[in-house]
């Protein structure tokens, strides 16, 4: 059922392109996040050539290998792919003006990406976003008690995004229609 629904959506290359672009954007956001200020500084510097400006963010993509654990790299890439698929099927719905979209699927997707984003960026020691959020409530010490050091949020993100895709795909295969009972 899921496979058939995805086949229906990705039959058109535009949705494949949309999923790829979105996935890359999420992936790049996660990898660049710790160094956003550096990228902004280099990009905004008038004395630096365009080649040099582009080289730095491209090379920083390599930090998925050097600045992530195997687990965090895996769930970061998975979240990026799942989010790309989610956005593509969401747009598929919008373009077909289906009004009875089951909101639970999309809502789950948004919670999934939120959880994933909070869990990701756990690049350098001290989970980047999670530490910031926990510091706000004076609870950053809680990280020491999480067996995966905050990676739990990334895994939760993967689960929620998967559920979101499943719920939305179900709706694509079984659209809301008045069934005739004979």
């Amino acid at each position, binding site marked *: 059922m899921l496979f058939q629904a995805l086949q229906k959506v990705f039959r058109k290359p535009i949705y494949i392109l949309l999923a790829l672009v979105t996935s890359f954007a999420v992936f790049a956001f996660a990898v660049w*996040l*710790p*160094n*956003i*200020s*550096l990228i902004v*500084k*280099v990009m905004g*510097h008038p*004395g*630096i050539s365009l080649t*040099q400006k582009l*080289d*730095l963010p491209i*090379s*920083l993509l*390599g*930090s998925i*290998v*050097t*600045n992530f*654990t195997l687990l965090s790299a895996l769930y970061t890439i998975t979240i990026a792919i799942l989010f790309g698929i989610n956005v593509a099927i969401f747009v598929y719905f919008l373009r077909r003006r289906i009004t009875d979209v*089951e*909101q*639970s699927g*999309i*809502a*789950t997707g*948004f*919670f999934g*990406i*939120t959880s994933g*984003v*909070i869990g990701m*960026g756990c*690049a*350098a*020691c*001290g*989970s*980047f*976003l*999670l*530490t*910031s*959020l926990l*510091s*706000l409530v*004076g609870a*950053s*010490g809680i*990280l*020491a008690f999480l067996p995966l*050091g905050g990676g739990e949020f990334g895994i939760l993100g993967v689960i929620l995004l998967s559920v979101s895709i499943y719920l939305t795909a179900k709706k694509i295969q079984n659209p809301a229609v008045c069934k005739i009972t004979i």
Partner: protein
Amino acid sequence: MKKFIKNIPLPLSVIIAGVLIAGAVYLGTSKNASTTAVNNQQPQQVPQQTGNLDQMAAISAGDHIRGNPNAPVKIVEYSDFECPFCKRFHDTMKQVMDEYGKDGKVAWVYRHFPLDQLHPVKARKEAVAVECANELGGNEAFWKFADRFFELTPSNNQTDVDTVLPQIAREIGLDVNEFNTCLASGKYDAHIEADVQNATATGSNGTPWSIVVDKNGKKYPLSGAQPYASVKQLIDLALQGK
């Protein structure tokens, strides 16, 4: 759970997600981000700092410098001996020094940033140990100790400090009794805490945290164990003094 999610209106879920992500990004990248540090005795909230690279303590003779102290480009690294990414980045920095250090173009300045929340007790004790190596054997012993420590230990708070620290001291030719006395003295606690405070003041959220300083004093922040290619590009920019 499904019923709960189903009952949440879509716009509300989008707003909640947006607010959480935007808030987290803002807090994580904000120049006014607050950071919590925990010292050896009790949890302590570091006062709200202005995360500004210009607050980096000036490089002085008291720093641990590898390479030419008058190099046009200096990389100031704030590091934690139990952080696996610092262990990885240490090798990257050694590669940097192999390429740029020999010509005196780059100097590597090492400062402490033990993350007590993640690596309680051990990271700070290891920072003291390397300071003791410096006291007993000078700058060369400091770097020998640091290199050997990262080479030998698994990181992530798994180091058997009582065995490993004296072992490295012995290996690099220090007097182990004097080393142990220094380790227990607590004389470097304030120095290490000052480094921690300075790291947070410059806007660090974790380790390794590096600041690349060019010949004109312009500073570039580099967070995490970034690939050698990125560090090299940043050094080349800094060497151009742009």
